[in-house]
């Protein structure tokens, strides 16, 4: 590895202007991503947006066309042995040799990672299987594993050797709700130990709950990056009001749209609307006054934070 940068000393992963093309077909155009040490970073984007391609480029499974990749401040070169010793990767839909038992999978990759102490490897394998909830299936061949079990085993393989950075592509895919909670708790535990996690997921509420920062990509480009709160504020001031009136006329909606700071009014159903506000101030008085002006009555009004899902959909729509 080479090219250590002082600025990147706080970064576990840095991707700059990454481009990967398959002949004339572009995989990713311009992906930028920074994962700070000791954080859980969400990596979001619609299917085919370039998340998996980016992750595979970082792991050296795909050769980048251009751009910069730095892991813990160093650029991986050749087989990137030093980098891979510090990084655990879990692909989307992980596959393992079907003839091996769950415990043997971990022993095998543990040996390939350079583990020579069989006793220690065995102990680590059992502990990881316990951690991902596969202790009871340790002696079952992988060919008989369900999708969810393979996901859990994929997580265990990524955790082999206690990596400092985990790159996880859809780690809750195929898991039942209990499994999702277990994974969430496990990832939070890893971050509290000071490890870094890059997490790609379609479960937006979960990402919002778990990740301190997110990067959103679309059509092979980074659309935005930042903390979930900052992004929400950048989007709509981070405040949304859900209001119910006794009657709702087009004139009233038009009037609401003209209120200072209101960026969008969305009719949900019947007389219920959602008002997005770009300035953080109490809108309830204005809503009540406007309603009475047009012969209506404000029945209820709740203030809520803009969800990551709304933010994601809006940004993706904008960048299309």
């Amino acid at each position: 590895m080479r090219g250590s940068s002082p600025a990147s000393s706080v970064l576990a992963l840095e991707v700059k202007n990454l481009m990967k093309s398959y002949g004339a077909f572009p995989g990713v155009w311009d992906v930028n991503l920074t994962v700070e040490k000791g954080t859980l970073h969400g990596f979001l984007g619609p299917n085919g947006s370039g998340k998996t391609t980016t992750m595979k480029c970082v792991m050296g499974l795909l050769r980048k066309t251009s751009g910069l990749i730095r892991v813990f401040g160093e650029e991986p070169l050749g087989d990137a042995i030093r980098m891979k010793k510090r990084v655990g990767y879990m692909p989307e839909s992980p596959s393992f040799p079907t003839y091996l038992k769950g415990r043997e999978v971990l022993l095998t990759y543990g040996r390939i990672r350079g583990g020579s102490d069989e006793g220690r490897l065995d102990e680590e394998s059992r502990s990881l299987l316990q951690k991902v909830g596969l202790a009871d299936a340790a002696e079952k061949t992988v060919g008989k594993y369900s999708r969810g079990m393979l996901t859990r085993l994929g997580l265990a393989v990524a955790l082999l050797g206690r990596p400092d950075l985990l790159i996880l592509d859809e780690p809750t895919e195929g898991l039942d709700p209990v499994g999702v909670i277990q994974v969430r708790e496990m990832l939070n535990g890893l971050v509290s130990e000071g490890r870094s996690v890059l997490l790609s997921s379609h479960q937006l509420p979960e990402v919002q709950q778990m990740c301190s920062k997110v990067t959103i990509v679309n059509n092979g480009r980074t659309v935005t990056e930042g903390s979930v709160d900052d992004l929400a504020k950048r989007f709509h001031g981070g405040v949304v009001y859900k209001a119910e009136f006794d009657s709702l006329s087009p004139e009233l909606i038009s009037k609401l749209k003209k209120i200072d700071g209101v960026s969008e009014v969305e009719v949900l159903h019947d007389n219920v609307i959602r008002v997005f506000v770009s300035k953080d101030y109490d809108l309830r008085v204005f809503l009540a006054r406007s309603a009475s002006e047009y012969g209506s009555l404000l029945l209820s009004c709740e203030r809520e934070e803009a969800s990551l899902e709304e933010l994601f959909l809006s940004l993706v729509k904008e960048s299309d």
Partner: protein
Amino acid sequence: MWAVARYELTWDLRKKRTYLIVGLFLFTAFVLGYLVPITAGKSVAEGQTQLGIIFGGGLWWVEVAYMAFNTFMSGLFFLFIGGFISADSLASEFDHNTAVPLLSQPIRRAEVYVGKFLAKIILLLVVSVLFTLLVLAASEISIGAQAQMDMLPLLVFAEFGAFLEFAALAFFLGSFARSGEMVLGLLITVFIMITAVVLVLGLKFGLQESMFLIPVVNADFLLNVIPYYIVQPWGVMVLQGYALGAGPTVPVTVTVISALQYVLAGLAISVLTPLAAGYYFFRRAEVKE
């Protein structure tokens, strides 16, 4: 590298295909070593053979383990064992997406490649030993005591070398085809195509002798080179060819080399070249799915 070899061997030993192929050919050893002499009579086993000219004496076990396969059939024999056992070694990693967890580990691709081939070396050496011993045992039972036991390592290594030829070819094909089924198809196609070309050219121009220089066809190259080296390591060999032209073809001496050079050339052409070419593709292989 040893961890990869162990991983590969475990896989091989748990595959039905391995047992089917090895079992089939150990059964062939039994048929040729035991059933043929019993059925056809000792005269077949005691007849003058090509081996008799080289080594003296009609040795049935030697005949079966070595020269009985010195035909198109020998190519098939080594293709089935060496080639088919190795066909999905690299390809299935890409076929089944297991290349992702494997190549994400902190290990050089060269170690993965060599480790996998090392597993084939171990497996094919065991198959060579088992096959030769089974032929010897079957011949002992069917037609009595066999002679020239000092040829045992020679025969084992000759078979082993020929197996490696096809294993290396399978690694080469697997590293860019990346599909087990495609590698099997390509192996068979290459084998049939070259054999057909050799047959046509050999019959038309009388080039049968020169065809010994073509690996793959019937595994003659290493099958002949290795024993020759073991028997006469510091001897010399005259490589002969035929001059082609508008007039009649005439035999000409191409060159004279030492047996050592010959065996090294044999190994280089038949094993190391396809292996190195395969590594070139494997080194550059991307894991897209």
